[in-house]
Every structure is written in C-alpha cells, then in structure tokens.
C-alpha cells in the first residue's frame, strides 16, 4: 500500500474536514484525538512547572523564585499532572480509541456523552488554568485543611472548582466504558477472551465511578468552608482537620490505581505482542486488576500514619497495604514469565514495556517501605515519598502511556514513527528518569522534607544530580513530541497490522473506517493467540453496514 492509497480510502480522519467536524464529532476515535491534544498540552504545562522546581532546587538557597512562587509551582505541578494528565491520559486517549475497537464495537455505548465528557474536562481545565493565570494556588495538590480552607491567600476556590468539574468527566467516561464492555462485545468475545487492556479499564472505571464523587464532595466542602466559614475542617470553627485527610485519601489513594492500572493493561498488550506469546496466567492477571481496584479502596489510612490517627487503625491500614501489593507483584512475575520461550523483538513500545516493569518493580518495592509502619514514620513527607510515587506515576504510568502511544500510533494515524529515534528516546527517558528520582530516595532517608523551598547545603550534591537527570528527561520527552508530529506527514505507511498483533483492533485498516470494522467481527479465540493466524481467530462476519 502506498501513501495515495491511504488518501483515497475513506477512513475516520478524512471522512470530513474542518474544525466543526472535530468539535462536534461523536466518533470515539476523534474524541481520543481531542483528549490526546489536551492532555499533551497539560503534560507540557505541568512539565514547565517541574522544570522551574528543579532549577530552584539546584542551589540550597531560595534564589530563583520566592517562597510564595515556589509553593505555587509545586502545587500547580501536582494539580496539572495528576488531575489533567495522569488520570485522563491512558483511559481517555488510548481507552477511548481502543475499548470499542478491541471488543469489536462500532463506538462507545453513549457517543454523545463521550463528547460531553471531553467538554467537561476542558471546562474544568479552563478553571484550573484560570486559577494559575490569576496568580496560582499554594496549598499543595493535597489541599490539607485548615491551611486550604482558611489560611491560604491564593486561588483555592477556583482551582477546586476546576477539579470538581473535571471529576464528572472521569465519572461519565467510567460509566461509558462499563456499559460498553458489558453490552457491546462482538459475537464470541467472551469475558475471558477480552484483552487485559479491557480488564484494566474495567477495573479503572469502577474506581472512577465509586471514588470520584468522594473527592468532588470533599473539595466542595473545602470551598464552602472557605467562602461561608462553615465549620467542617477548621477546629476553631468546630471542625476536624483530619476528617479532610480521610475523605481526600479515600479517593486519592484509589486514584493512584486509576493512574497505574491502565498502564498495566497497556504493558500486557505490549509484552504479549513483542514476545508473540499469550500472557502467562491470563486470568490471574485479569483478576489481579479487579483485586487491586477493590482492595485499593481500603488502604487510604496509610497516608495518615503520623497524622494522629490511632495506632490500631495504623496497623490495620499497614496490613491491608501489604496485601494490596501482592496482586501487583503477581503481575510483574507473570509478565516476566511471558517472555520465557517467547520470540522477543525490541521495537520502541517493547522498550517502554520492559522499562515499565523495571521501574514499577522499584516503585512497588519502595511502596512496601512506606507501608511498613516503623519506616513510614521516618520517611513520611520526605523526598523518599516523592521518589516512590514518581517511580509509580512517571516510571510506571508515563512509560506505559508512551509505550501505548507508540504501539497504536500506526493504527491511529496510518503512519509509522521513526523506529531508531523512538528507541533512542525510550533509552534517554529511562536513564534520565533514574538519575532524576533515584537520588531522591537517599535525600528522603537522610531527612529532606518534601515541599522545601530552601534546604541545608549538605543535600546539594544529590539535588544537583536530580536536576541533571530532569534535564535529560526533558530531552527524552521532547523527542517523541517532535518525531511523532513529523511522522504524521512523513512517516512510512503502516498498513493494517505492522506488529503482527492478534488483537481485534489490528484486523481492520489503519486508520480504521468510522464504523471501525467493515464487517461485524466474529471472535473464536482470546486476544493473544499468537500461535494461530488472524484469519483463523476471526472468521469473516456479515457486512457491518447491513
């Protein structure tokens, strides 16, 4: 197939043109692009804040920015990255594009609701960016009371309104995914033939629906206490500041799994495809996702071991946090075992997947340090915590996201990205990441608290290492931005199935037609039947147009 053939064939990208055809689209594939553009924008805004933070920390004195500004920078970095990049990234971009395609559906169950979700997301993002432009917010992304509800003089209300609104986008997306996965699977696509990506998104959707309302109500209460002096969290008004922490973490701990479960789903797809094997222990990995989603709701108190909660509550939360680590460990072992006797190739997505396993393993193991009560007391609120959750969220989620973007790029655009550059970028990101965040484990244990604008001079060497790593990481992130845009015009034509994958989404042309499949697919095998030909797995169904 050559370029002109892509141009001639009608598909979801060229079926209509003009800005209205995008802003009023109900095609899940086009909505995925709307999200891709928005979360990329937020990623680089959040990255800009991170750059300033790392530059400030190059020296122990507060010399680049003032304390007020520094506090706003780390707050805006956290808020932007968590609520406007990490949470929507994989579900709203790759999930939107792939959930219907992987199960053989024409679209999500509620296409107009899907478009509404994007508008809600943008509205929430606009409020939060407005807060940043108006002078920012300095509470930390955790909004601890009574600082946020009474003492801070910054734009708390505007920011929490933004997050409140954006939450509805998550809830509606979760609802859409759950209904779609239940009701719209193609003939023969049984639950245990579903790709693990779908299982991961199903588990994530449960958290979206059950958790997000709690953060919405909590942040609303912060706003109400701030405006009307309702005594909910401030003790001088009769409230309880620790209540806020319970409510906040009841959502925000499961939110960590919102960020990492979809990445695990991506990694399962990549490991299977690039080793041409079924995922070892498929059903165990599928149930591990659900197990993480359920137990993940019961561990919020491990963020509060030094908050003054009872010692016995601390013990229960520590125990449950140990238990929730097990399904993640099982997944790592199963991915590794999948490589055994496989046929492994090292295309860029696989490099990201292997990088994910390594960094997620380190993030998970350091999570055990934090779940261990006696150690947590010392490292709580230090750089050890910062290092740990960046290993999970950047080493895990962002690696998974980038691996997924590279893997499905040919499907989304019909073009291939330049493989050499992509491998180089993956390597740079892996090295830059470790140089940035590994020194922070040491910094934390020797006692550097988080959110410190000024720090003792003896911590400088490790901070300089971290900042050096961050600049390498920045190069690593700018590379894909450049060559992926370049490939839209100059990339080689990809064809239907450039990776020889067995998933249903690869059995239709790239880019896919608006209705996804020319014929209703029939499924006779699980998503990873690499020992069989695709034609064997998916016999031709009746034409989809009828």
């Amino acid at each position: 197939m050559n370029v002109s053939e892509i141009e001639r064939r009608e598909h979801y990208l060229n079926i209509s043109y003009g800005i209205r055809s995008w802003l009023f689209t109900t095609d899940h594939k086009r909505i995925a692009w709307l999200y891709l553009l928005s979360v990329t924008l937020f990623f680089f805004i959040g990255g800009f804040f991170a750059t300033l933070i790392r530059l400030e920390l190059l020296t122990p004195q507060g010399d680049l920015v003032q304390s007020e500004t520094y506090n706003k920078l780390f707050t805006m970095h956290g808020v932007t990255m968590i609520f406007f990049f990490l949470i929507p990234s994989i579900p709203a971009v790759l999930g939107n594009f792939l959930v219907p395609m992987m199960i053989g559906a024409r679209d999500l169950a509620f296409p107009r609701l899907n478009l509404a979700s994007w508008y809600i997301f943008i509205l929430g993002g606009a409020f939060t960016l407005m807060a940043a432009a108006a002078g920012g917010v300095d509470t930390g992304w955790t909004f601890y009371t009574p600082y946020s509800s009474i003492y801070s003089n910054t734009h708390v209300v505007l920011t929490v309104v933004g997050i409140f609104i954006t939450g509805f986008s998550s809830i509606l997306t979760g609802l859409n995914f759950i209904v779609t996965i239940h009701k719209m699977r193609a003939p023969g696509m049984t639950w245990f033939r579903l790709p693990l990506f779908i299982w991961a998104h199903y588990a994530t959707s449960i958290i979206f629906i059950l958790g997000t309302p709690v953060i919405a109500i909590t942040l609303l209460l912060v706003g109400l206490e701030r405006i009307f002096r309702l005594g909910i969290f401030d003790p001088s008004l009769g409230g309880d500041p620790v209540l806020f922490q319970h409510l906040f973490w009841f959502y925000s701990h499961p939110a960590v799994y919102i960020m990492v479960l979809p990445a695990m789903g991506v990694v399962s797809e990549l490991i299977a495809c690039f080793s041409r094997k079924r995922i070892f222990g498929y059903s165990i990995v599928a149930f591990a996702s659900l197990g993480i989603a359920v137990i993940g709701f019961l561990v919020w108190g491990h963020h509060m071991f030094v908050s003054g909660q009872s010692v016995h509550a601390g013990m229960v939360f520590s125990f449950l946090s140990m238990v929730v680590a097990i399904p993640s460990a099982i997944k790592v072992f199963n991915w590794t075992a999948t490589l055994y006797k496989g046929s492994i190739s090292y295309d860029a997505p696989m490099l990201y997947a292997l990088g994910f396993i390594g960094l997620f393993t380190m993030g998970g193991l350091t999570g055990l340090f934090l779940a261990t009560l006696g150690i947590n007391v010392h490292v709580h609120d230090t750089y050890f915590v910062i290092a740990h959750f960046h290993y999970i969220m950047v080493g895990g989620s962002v690696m998974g996201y980038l691996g997924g973007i590279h893997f499905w790029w040919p499907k989304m655009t019909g073009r291939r990205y330049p493989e050499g550059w992509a491998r180089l970028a993956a390597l740079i990101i892996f090295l830059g990441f470790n140089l940035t965040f590994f020194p922070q484990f040491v910094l934390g244990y020797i006692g550097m608290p988080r959110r410190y604008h000024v720090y003792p001079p003896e911590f400088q060497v490790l901070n300089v290492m971290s900042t050096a790593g961050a600049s390498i990481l920045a190069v690593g992130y700018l590379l894909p931005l450049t060559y992926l845009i370049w490939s839209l015009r100059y990339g080689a034509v990809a064809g239907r199935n450039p990776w020889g994958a067995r998933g249903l989404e690869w059995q239709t042309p790239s880019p896919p037609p608006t209705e996804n499949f020319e014929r209703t697919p029939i499924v006779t095998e699980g998503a990873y039947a690499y020992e069989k030909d695709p034609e064997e797995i998916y016999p031709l169904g009746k034409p989809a147009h009828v």
Partner: protein
Amino acid sequence: MNLGFPLFPEQASTMASRVDALFFFLVAVSVFFVALIFLAIFVFAVKYRRRSEDERPRPIEGNFWLEIFWSAIPLGLTMVMFVWGAIIYFDIYNPPNDALEISIVGRQWMWKAQHAEGQREINELHVPVGQAVKLTMTSEDVIHDVFLPAFRIKQDVLPGRYTTLWFQASKPGEYPLLCSQYCGTQHSGMVGRVVVLQPAEFEKWLSGGATGMSMVDLGESLFQRFGCNTCHRVGGTSQGPSLVGLFGKTVQLQGGKTVAANEDYIRESILDPRAKVVAGYQPIMPTFKGLISEEGILQLIAYIKSLHTVERKASQK
C-alpha cells in the same frame, strides 16, 4: 557532623538503630527482587530474541502452582515487614511513664517549647541524653509536624487537639528539628535544632536564665487570674466540681456518658465548657476562647495535673 555529602542520617536516639535495622531488611529484600526481575528479563531477552520473522512460539497458558508459589513468598515477606514495623510503631507512640514532659506549640512559622520548670525556647529544644522525653504538642493555626530525622521519628502537630511524641536521645550533639507537614509560605523556614546535653549540663541549662516560675506556678497564677478558683475550689462548690485528683480519672457526664480526663478533655472544657458538662452541675461556665493562649492552656493543664499532689498533701494533714 557536616561531611558535605552525607548518604545516611546520624543515629542519635534509641529508636534510630531499630528503624535502620528494619530499613536494611527491606533494602535487602528489594535488592533481591529487583536483581531477580532484571536478571530474568535480561536473560530471557537475550536467549529468546526473535531470530526469524516467522517464529511461532508454543503457547504457555500459565501454571497454577507457580502462581501460588510467587504469591505466597511475597505475602510471607510482607507479613514479616508488617509485624516488625508495627512493633516499632507501637513503641514510637507509647511513651514510658517516667518521661520528662515538654510542651510544644507550633505556629506559622516557628516552634515554641516550654519545659516543666518554666524555661521557654523558640526553634530550639534542649534535652538531656539518656532520658526519655515526651512532647505534648498542639498548633495555633494549621497542621505542622515535628520531624527529628536523627531520631527517626515524626508526628503531626494539629490545631485543636494534642498529639504526643517521645524519644530518648542517645548521643549528645545538635540535630535538626524540622517541620515536615506543609504549612504555608515559610514552611521550609520552620526549622530549628534539638540540643542534646549531658544530664548535668542540662540541669545547668534549665536553671540558667529562667523566670523562676515553673509551668505549674504559671498555671496556678492563671488559675487565680481567670477566677477559676471561685468555682473550682478544693472540695468543689455548687457551681463547679473540684479539680483535685481529676487528671487521669473517668468523669461522669450529664446524660450518663463518661469521659477520660486527659489533656484534650481539659482543653475542650476551657474553650467549649458546654460540650461536656459534669453530671450534677449546670452549664454555667463561660468560654475562655480568645482569652487564653495555647501556652496558657498547657500551663493550666500542668497545674491541674499537679493537683494530685495537693490532694495527697491534704490527706496527710
């Protein structure tokens, strides 16, 4: 002390080596698993690299017993971490009875400490080596956190209630005293030092430069000044119960409930007297909210605690 580039914090309390031992156990477990996973990935990646484009590896569905094996071993190891960590945690938050008591009040952005003998200090905390010290802490505004890295302990300091933390310093010297709960603009400036002295030096420090008034004396003078003694006389009056021997007792409240008379109860009764009314009394006490500082309340509590001794003296007479 200042090596320029430390990679490990000083051990200056009895807890430090216990926390570090557990830490090194977890480091060992982590290094083992990271090495195992990295090695497995590396070996498989080399050994099973794709040699020709038409390779079709034989499918392997999984292995039930292998799954049990690699679930049970991590579970067992995490249970060791859990129990070991819980034992240390329990000890960190259960002070011995004979601990030296110091009260701490945090505010944006400083630490104020007051010793039982009346000695006050700001952003410094002098303590004797080899003796258990218990901090009773509260905040005047937002949440702060006392973090003593050389002692491997920390505890949030909350407005509106007391939290406690104890330690026994094992080595004379100066160690950082940090705020580790984000508390606003000058959060990173809310730092000071703990000065650990030999017991004799500590005694000398305590007696130097003080007002001569102990916490109990200061509390007693507040008790007179605010007219507390008009109702809460020894033996009690019809307006208010006696406070002698109150601390640590269980108090019968109106409506049949009971409450343990601890620091939080006394604080609440001063600031919000109608929240918990003692059985047999009318809710007539006015609030002292806004009239008395957090330090003043701590002095009153010290005085009320000392009334045990008064009772004993009274019975001897």
